[in-house]
């Protein structure tokens, strides 16, 4: 049974995915990806999986963007 909130969460995740793909600059993309990770976490909460939501948030919204940012910084430093 889908509630209106779950439907909203699914739509938001779909919209977030679209935004990540549409963002072409990797630096901006890292930040948009972070928001997408947060949206995924919210979706997991709406589907009553708080443990997975926690993992989705720490990995998707924190760890992954951090790694992308650091890698980008390294690549740009090498180009200097």
């Amino acid at each position: 049974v889908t509630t209106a909130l779950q439907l909203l969460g699914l739509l938001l995740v779909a919209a977030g995915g679209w935004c990540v793909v549409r963002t072409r600059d990797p630096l901006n993309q890292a930040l948009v990806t972070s928001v997408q990770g947060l949206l995924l976490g919210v979706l997991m909460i709406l589907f009553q999986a708080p443990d997975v939501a926690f993992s989705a948030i720490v990995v998707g919204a924190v760890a992954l963007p951090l790694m992308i940012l650091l890698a980008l910084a390294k690549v740009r430093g090498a180009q200097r």
Partner: protein
Amino acid sequence: VIARQRQAVMWLVGPALGALVLWGATGLPAFGAFHGAVGELLNGVAYGERHAPNVVAAIVFDYRGFDTLGEEFILFAAVAGVAMLLRAERDEEECPPQPDAIPGRMDVEPSAAVRVLSLGLVGAMLLIGLYVVAHGHLTPGGGFQGGVILASGWVLIYLADELKTFRRLTPEGVVEAAEALAAGAYVFVGAGGLLAGREFLANVLPFGQPGSLLSAGTILLLNLGVGVEVGAAFVLLSAEFLRQVLEMRERR
């Protein structure tokens, strides 16, 4: 020309893939339908058998604890691989940290707001991280999630001050040893089951009062070990990355 070729391939492959996905989707069980007999069973018995209100933790660190051992060592191997890729190479040398700006542009200092906020958040984040690690058997969370929170709290030290401070507070040898020992602790706790004359990773400790912090037997110990392992792994990754980004330059 290449873009057009790419588009042509896309028009060929895209609809085919879409059709395949739609075809597969028609065979899926209805939304919300669940046929996992084991899941229903564990939902019923886990609390009574393990005194762990968070059934997910009981499954991850007890009933399916061996899977989690593999998961932890995947992370361990991945971090070891990245650390190896980020090592100082022969044609690189360590320089004093460089201003984080393109030549000819002004070096932007982090604002006081960023520094104060980061400094204030370090303690709060570490506390939340510890809470999430230690209460894995009671509430959502546990070693994996709490470990990442601990590490992000620690990395805020870099935002609050400068790289030198962060590196002085993060002795690589200690962090590496903590990561390896905590990863090994999972195996040691598992071997405890063998010592007690039962199977590997058997939950042989007393289960305690359901809902209290000291309960659920080895689940708590495993969570603590995983928390240290994951936290140290991410601190190590960040430290290596920051060193590579800010201090390593190719030798001229």
